[in-house]
């Protein structure tokens, strides 16, 4: 086990990695559109990303477990830097597709290694608080960087932001050699479990769809809707809400989106007694803005925030779902992949 200073260093390493990725988050879809990418092509990019992660998630976690988690983490940072750079220099769909491949591989590499690495560096009794501390720091930094990124450019079509996000990520890659140490001891390998889990999940997935379990269908529909929302909220807000191309506005909106999501997720998971009053307070506040908004911009921004607010509370429904499954004894199996 490492000292708490080492664990803190690891937590900040992971949190800053996620935060640097958020520098471009508030304007990413609008930037691609400004380069001539259509909304359908943005959908194809997202679909491609999800496909690459789906295929490579388990094999990459296996390789990380078997060989080196530290190498996977360093490669993840390098691939993110390359994703940002390729996006900055590209102007056609094929190159953006290449960038998305790098992005997806980066996410799959990081997801397959970082949390396992972090947890293998903490004592058994410390795992839960460490994860919660990591999530909290990560969310705060992500929201801050989401706000800061677009503040540094004039319009959403500027590639400058992507260049310097890439430079910052390359810097973080070099820092990884200083901040991430070679794993001293590894917990039992879970790679085979992951591979088996994927096969079992596919079987269960088919049977769940066939049996049309109502809550499962609801949860999955919401998951798909949420992914669509994440991908297209910017063009919807720009075209329907008429928000201008001034980049800082998008930074502020994305900051609000991430804050609302973090807060609602936090309340759902940690403060179950506060969830109902919180839903009422947040919803009424936002609906009030929505109803009395004098500008179209404010109206649509409030609408998007209300939808993202409920996306956080959907986690609460998921927890209830798991609890009901556990109580009926239908055999919930917590696999490593579900913890990542």
């Amino acid at each position, binding site marked *: 086990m490492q000292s708490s200073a080492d664990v803190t260093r690891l937590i900040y390493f992971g949190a800053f990695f996620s935060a640097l990725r958020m520098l471009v988050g508030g304007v990413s879809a609008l930037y691609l559109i400004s380069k001539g990418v*259509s*909304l*359908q*092509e*943005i*959908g*194809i990019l*997202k*679909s491609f990303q*999800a*496909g690459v*992660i*789906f295929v490579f998630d388990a094999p990459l976690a296996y390789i990380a477990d078997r060989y080196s988690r530290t190498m996977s983490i360093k490669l993840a940072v390098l691939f993110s830097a390359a994703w940002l750079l390729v996006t900055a220099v590209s102007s056609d769909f094929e190159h953006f597709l290449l960038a998305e491949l790098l992005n997806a591989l980066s996410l799959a590499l990081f997801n397959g290694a970082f949390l396992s690495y972090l947890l293998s560096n903490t004592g058994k009794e410390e795992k839960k608080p460490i994860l919660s501390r990591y999530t909290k720091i990560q969310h705060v930094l992500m929201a801050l960087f989401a706000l800061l990124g677009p503040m540094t450019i004039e319009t959403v079509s500027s590639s400058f932001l992507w260049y310097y996000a890439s430079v910052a990520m390359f810097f973080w890659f070099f820092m990884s050699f200083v901040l991430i140490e070679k794993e001293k001891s590894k917990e039992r390998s879970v790679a085979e479990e992951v591979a088996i*889990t*994927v096969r079992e*999940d*596919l079987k*269960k*997935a088919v049977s*769940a*769809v066939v049996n049309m379990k109502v809550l*499962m269908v609801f*949860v*999955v529909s919401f*998951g*798909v809707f949420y*992914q*669509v929302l994440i*991908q*297209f909220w910017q*063009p*919807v807000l720009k*075209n*329907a809400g008429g928000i201008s191309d001034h980049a800082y506005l998008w930074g502020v909106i994305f900051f609000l989106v991430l804050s609302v999501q973090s807060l609602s997720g936090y309340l759902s998971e940690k403060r179950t007694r506060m969830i109902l009053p919180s839903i009422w307070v947040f919803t009424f506040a936002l609906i009030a803005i929505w109803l009395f908004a004098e500008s179209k911009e404010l109206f649509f921004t409030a609408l998007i925030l209300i939808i993202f607010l409920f996306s956080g509370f959907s986690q609460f429904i*998921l927890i209830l*779902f*798991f609890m009901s*499954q556990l109580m009926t004894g239908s055999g*919930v*199996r*917590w*696999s490593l*992949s*579900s913890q990542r």
Partner: protein
Amino acid sequence: MESVKSTITSLFVIALVPVAGSWIDEMLAYL
């Protein structure tokens, strides 16, 4: 169960997000 949910969601996202893109495009064109 969480991982089963993620598996199904991923499959639907892969299949549906490009379609959603063109729907949203058409919807925005009407607005």
